[in-house]
């Protein structure tokens, strides 16, 4: 059984319907990437899964349980953590406090987890008492991911982790993501940077116009000429 299974999800904002029935799944241990041209509904799909956008019809099952009616605060407790694309840190709190907020729903002692995060992201350790608002773009992204990892999530949802980063940093971020996956966390990524993310993905989906278009293994999608056509028409 798939870890996460979204079937025929219809969702949108106000009167506008963005997703017209999208189905995706993530199996345990996988990295799955969703790509597609701007405005295809990738981010909306993420938000629908975590409960920030209401799912109008269709179902989202996580470990077999329907989570499509849960509040975001409840989906987090079930082991599904989400990193938004931007504004994904608490700027006036210190880095350590940001990590503590990530563990908000944990009831056990999570100090060792903070240390683990500092080991994974040494940059953050050096400035643990600094206000997060003073971090650079790349460090912010790292902090946001570390924050989400504080819960030992089963599945991590990352919305465009490479957005707005310098090319050199993008590579580092993807390295880290691969490292996270190796510790047993399954990942669902929405990415603009299709090539790099598909290369390390087990599977990928291409969305366009709020519908599923193609599903294939990561490398196979990379070589599919149809993908380019979906982006640039023609």
């Amino acid at each position, binding site marked *: 059984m798939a870890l996460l299974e979204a079937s025929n999800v219809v969702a949108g904002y106000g009167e506008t319907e963005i997703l017209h029935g999208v189905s995706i799944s993530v199996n345990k241990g996988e990295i799955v990437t969703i790509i597609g*041209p701007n405005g295809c509904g990738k981010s909306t799909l993420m938000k629908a899964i975590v409960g920030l956008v209401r799912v109008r019809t269709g179902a989202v099952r996580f470990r077999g349980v329907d989570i499509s009616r849960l509040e975001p605060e409840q989906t987090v407790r079930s082991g599904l953590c989400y990193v938004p694309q931007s504004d994904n840190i608490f700027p006036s709190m210190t880095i350590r406090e940001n990590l503590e907020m990530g563990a908000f729903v944990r009831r056990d002692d999570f100090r060792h987890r903070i240390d683990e995060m500092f080991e994974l992201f040494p940059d953050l350790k050096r400035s643990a008492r600094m206000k997060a608002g003073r971090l*650079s773009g790349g460090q912010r992204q790292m902090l946001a991911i570390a924050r989400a990892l504080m819960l030992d999530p089963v599945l991590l949802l990352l919305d465009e982790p490479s957005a707005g980063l310098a090319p050199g940093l993008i590579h580092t971020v993807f390295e880290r993501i691969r490292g996270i996956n190796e510790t047993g966390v399954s990942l669902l990524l929405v990415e603009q940077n299709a090539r790099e993310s598909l290369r390390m993905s087990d599977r990928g989906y291409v969305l366009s116009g709020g519908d599923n278009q193609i599903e294939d293994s990561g490398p196979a999608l*990379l070589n599919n000429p149809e993908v*380019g056509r979906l982006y640039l028409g023609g």
Partner: protein
Amino acid sequence: MTDSSPILQVRNVTKDFGGVRAVDRCTLDVMPGTITGLIGPNGAGKTTLFNLAAGDLSPTSGQILFDGRVISGLRPHQTFARGLMRTFQIPRELRRMTVLENLMLVPARQSGERLWSTWLTPWKVARQERQIQARAIDVLELVNLAHLANDLAGNLSGGQKKLLELARTLMAQPKMVLLDEPGAGINRTLLRDLSANIVRASVERDVTFFIIEHDMRFVMAMCDPVIVMANGGVIAEGPPTTIQRDPRVLEAYLGGYVNGPA
């Protein structure tokens, strides 16, 4: 067909938000009379560039010229007065006002906007109102919204709000319009109407359009040239067919050969 001097010139413009650089030494020209497309992956800085040109933001460095004069740093109503109008990605209609009122607001230098003229020269105001209303109805007919003239704008559908945004720009009779994703969230039929309206305005009213759009069919069918932004700067520019075949553009979308070819 195009003049020799560009109507909009972006000169080495940079915009930082805190630690994030949204627009990075961007330089581009838009020629008068064209329908120029602006495409690029998310976070490329397109909307920020529009905000800078329209006066909603000030650049950190660099200059923007419109019609040969510097406009960067002006406030929105001042860029409007120069003949540059923008629309919003998510329509911002005036909800509790009618569709007609939404349009009648737009024309500049209405004598009735001076408080005293509503008392001292009401006949002048009334005459101008009649003219403006007639024009507004013309524009509404153009975009097929005339039957909704007296409905509250807040009650329009998403697609109709998009048309209202376009109608507002037609009402202003600007020299140039910045359209931010006019096609997002509207259906095929409306999209066709919209394109037809843009082309007509461009030809008949001599308006220059600069359009951010993600629907590639729309861009390829209408825009020439197309400018491609990525990471805050321009990476390619040219006629749509060339852009479509340009490997750099696809790379920008798919994530380039940052560490050598894949």
